[in-house]
């Protein structure tokens, strides 16, 4: 009977090593099937995170022969038959045990994103949106949060220090989804520039290449996001507008402070660019 050699990383936060398991080859199997047979046989304590085994939940992300893959969607017969199949945990996240990593970084970033804030509904109490206006958002909402785009992103893959200043591709498409939502009312552009660190991305498209949902993360998500931030911050006319508005507002506030008894002062006009301040020397965008 034909056999396969699975070279699986075993270890914990203190370190680990690859262990070979030689298993019978079975037609039509995916990598996760073989991992399950190893668990039911030679290594009952082999840790591996998984749920749906149908490519829908994004739990079983790992690195197969060095490439981030969903174990449940990687067919054994798609891998080179002559070598061992090397299975390792995602490198960007701290190891818990064996193939399981601590992905809490992603949940922390998610908490920092101001939520969807819709405009009020129409007269019948519901919202109207046209299909064409939500298709981009729907593309991003296909994301199954496998975090493989985060894993492969070189900004954080070998740079733990960047994790505090960089949200990563998964959350750039989340932000672009909110930015492009026809009903959303918040302006998150300064947050995207300053706190989410969209400027760190230099468009190598590694994230797009590994996305199991084939979301065009870079072209449809990150690049338009960068453009929006740039438009808001570095457009010279907007810059001039902000200067003038700022002066107007200051004048109005001064007037209000000087003459409190004369009723409400003229409302300061809404500042289209929200919390944005004057452009400083541009960082990498």
């Amino acid at each position: 009977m034909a056999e396969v050699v699975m070279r699986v990383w075993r270890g914990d936060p203190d370190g680990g090593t690859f262990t070979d398991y030689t298993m019978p080859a079975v037609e039509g199997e995916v990598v996760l099937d073989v991992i399950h047979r190893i668990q039911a046989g030679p290594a009952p304590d082999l840790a591996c995170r998984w749920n749906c085994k149908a490519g829908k939940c994004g739990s079983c992300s790992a690195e197969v022969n060095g490439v981030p893959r969903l174990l449940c969607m990687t067919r054994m017969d798609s891998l080179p038959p002559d070598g061992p199949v090397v299975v390792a945990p995602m490198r960007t996240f701290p190891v818990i045990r064996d193939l399981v990593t601590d992905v809490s970084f992603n949940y922390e970033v998610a908490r920092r994103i101001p939520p969807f804030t819709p405009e009020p509904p129409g007269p019948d109490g519901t919202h109207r949106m046209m299909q064409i206006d939500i298709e981009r958002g729907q593309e991003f909402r296909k994301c199954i949060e496998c975090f493989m785009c985060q894993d492969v992103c070189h900004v954080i893959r070998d740079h733990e220090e960047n994790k505090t200043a960089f949200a990563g591709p998964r959350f750039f498409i989340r932000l672009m989804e909110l930015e492009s939502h026809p009903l959303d009312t918040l302006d998150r552009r300064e947050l995207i520039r300053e706190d989410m660190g969209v400027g760190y991305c230099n468009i190598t498209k590694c994230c797009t290449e590994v996305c199991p949902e084939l979301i065009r993360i870079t072209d449809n998500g990150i690049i338009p996001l960068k453009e929006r931030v740039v438009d808001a911050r570095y457009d010279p006319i907007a810059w001039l507008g902000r200067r003038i508005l700022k002066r107007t507002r200051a004048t109005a506030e001064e007037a209000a402070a000087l003459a409190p008894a004369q009723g409400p002062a003229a409302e300061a006009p809404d500042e289209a660019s929200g919390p944005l301040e004057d452009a400083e020397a541009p960082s990498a965008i």
Partner: protein
Amino acid sequence: MPDYETHEFDVVIIGAGGAGLRAAIEAKERGLRTALVCKSLLGKAHTVMAEGGAAAAMGNVWPQDNWQVHFRDTMRGGKMLNNWRMAQIHAQEAPDRIYELERWGALFDRTDDGRILQRDFGGHRYARLAHVGDRTGLEMIRTLQQRAVALDVDVFMECKVLRLLKDTDGRIASVVAYWRATGDFVVFRAKSVVLATGSVGKVWLYTSNSWESTGDGHAMAFWAGADLIDMEFVQFHPTGMVWPLSVRGALVTESVRGDGGILLNSEGKRFMFDYIPPMFAAETADNEGEADRWYDDHLNNRRPPELLPRDEVARSINSEVKAGRGGPHSGVFLDIASRRSPEYIKRRLPSMYHQFKELAGVDITAEPMEIAPTCHYIMGGIRVDADTEATRVPGLFAAGEVAAGMHGANRLGGNSLSDLLVFGRRAGMAASDFAEGRTGEPTFDEAELNGVFAEAETPFARGDGESPYDVHQDLQRMMQDLVGIIRTESELVQALDELDKLDDRAKRLSVIGGRAYNPGWNLATDLPSMLTVARLVTKGALDRRESRGGQTRDDYPKADPELGKVDFVQRQSPTGEYLIAPEPLPAMPPELGTLLEEEQS
């Protein structure tokens, strides 16, 4: 006693699928200290796999639709065994719950005039399912997850619950669990608890369910003294993948049929016309011409027989295969390739296209899929009050698949996602009320807690015992063979005998390795739930001597009108005695009964 950490909350919700998340949102919005405890990472619960949509009579596609028609369809689909009040609440409140998701950021597919589009599904008179392609569950769980995060609900991920403890007055008092990452014990003191633990599918070999569906909530409620009803009603979804073996049981959405797909046997015959039951004859097309016209004109044509309720379709497929008209892997063929354009199929069913292409090497726009029934859903579960989802145990509530009554003997596709929202919210409200009205801090017996810890830890101390993987596989095979889609007395009796043996083996489990993220140990702690559920299903199936919905008895092939008036209730007395007895269904008010009669005539 081992060390453990303690947390105190007003409301603890177990399970972070649609029902659990919706309950947590409700309790948190009320300002209560709310904990959401789940076995997996947030956003990975089984709800994420739901494909077709959420049924709600919004009337966006067919203005003739309303809650009364939805109520009627649900009751008839459930073979009239539903709790009428739950079916009514569900039909009335589902539209609001869908619009609410939209206000929280969900992006459903749209009609031409910008409203939420609705799709056809089995057993529903009108196109009723709000959806996003064939990934509606993902949209729903992500929307609820993001809402819960925005409200700052405390989430305890990868935390496996072992047992519920009560105080001396019999009220719920705490939830005992362990962290999967470390294996360390954790105790949640809780004023009220909502069980939202989902399904039991992993008791069977071929299932669409994820590993989490081990019936933890069903079992823990039973151990705590709650009533369980209708446990014999298990839904085998008609269309699961059959090949390769790796994906056997994986779900093929009913949307394939809702969007025009048909079922063929190995002779190429569209066989469902041979299986139209009298109950649905008046509303089902008896020829291909009418069936095909129905997709565009629901008012002047009857529904294709492929869109009969799931129990009917699953039984028919089973019969065709048994008669020797099955495919090479003992399935039948689901064909949409010859019926719709490749562009249409890829737009409407992108995940199905991807799933078959990647895992089976089948292009569903060019060739039929081979499919067979797969264990998908349990209609039975914890008996709850229809309005509050309260169980018999004070302070314990249940919502979603773990609760029973809403779907009767058979669930209609699309009614589950809306069930989660409607009753998740109501459970959250009632659990909050209970927590607010409760006096004194929850207390429990330390010795009982110690017993739970000891039981969980024992497999580590046993050097040479049974492998949890072996016991689980043997349980799955046995249930597949003896308590599957078609049942008979001799096999059910044999199943009880086999369960005794498996219970004995489960008392001798041993696991190796440490406590941290040890899947062998995790499985060992799931087995008591699965064995309990397997027994409850088998007992119910044995006592219900009739065929109805998700219970098909070879030896009692017809529905018994007398048994159509009762639920089989199973419970454990405080002294540990097991009881099973038929109890009458709640009486339906005459005006709702009239609704059903009018429609039937």
